[in-house]
């Protein structure tokens, strides 16, 4: 029972390079999320997806691209990495049925995080 897995767990890259962080979940959860965690800011939502082929911006989407061609995968791409994108990135999923009127607690299930350093 793998749950939700992220790769790579650690990555060092250089400014201007493209980086993709992978996220895979085995629960068939509808919703998936990408957060970044930085000291003093807590967890901030980058992008989320309500279902395959449906994505939407969160609080801090600039410099990031996502896709969701399959329910189980939600990759996050930094097209041209910058030092300010050095952070720990968490992918999460949620078994939400939908928006208004949905059942579910809003509880998120997190991956173990990907620590990205941009030099």
């Amino acid at each position, binding site marked *: 029972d793998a749950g939700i897995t992220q790769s790579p767990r650690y990555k060092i890259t250089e400014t201007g390079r493209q980086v993709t962080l992978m996220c895979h979940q085995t629960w068939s959860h509808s919703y998936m999320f990408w957060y970044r965690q930085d000291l*003093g800011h807590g967890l901030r939502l980058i992008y989320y997806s309500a279902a395959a082929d449906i994505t939407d911006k969160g609080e801090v989407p600039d410099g990031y691209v996502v896709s969701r061609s399959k329910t189980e995968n939600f990759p996050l791409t930094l097209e041209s990495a910058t030092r300010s994108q050095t952070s720990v990135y968490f992918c999460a999923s949620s078994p939400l049925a939908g928006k208004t009127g949905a059942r579910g607690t809003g509880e*998120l299930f*997190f991956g173990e995080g990907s620590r990205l350093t941009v030099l």
Partner: protein
Amino acid sequence: EDKVVQSPLSLVVHEGDTVTLNCSYEVTNFRSLLWYKQEKKAPTFLFMLTSSGIEKKSGRLSSILDKKELFSILNITATQTGDSAIYLCAGVNAGNMLTFGGGTRLMVKP
């Protein structure tokens, strides 16, 4: 814009002490409040609170919600070194979107 604020930012106590962590929220169409514990890796779920005044309890941890004053507290009694972690709270709106607070870093010394 939804907002969640936690206090204190950090806390150092000794084993056996009782601690209270605070979480205030401004969430449009509030649905629930969640508490998570984050040790070295990913946050793990502790509690979900939806109703005012009803205490949720799990061992030495308990939490309560006040929807009138828009806050929640997390209590930990008889703290142990294993309680050292970052504690996160998050407000959930009617769209089931979470807004996290900045976290409280708790360190429990032997």
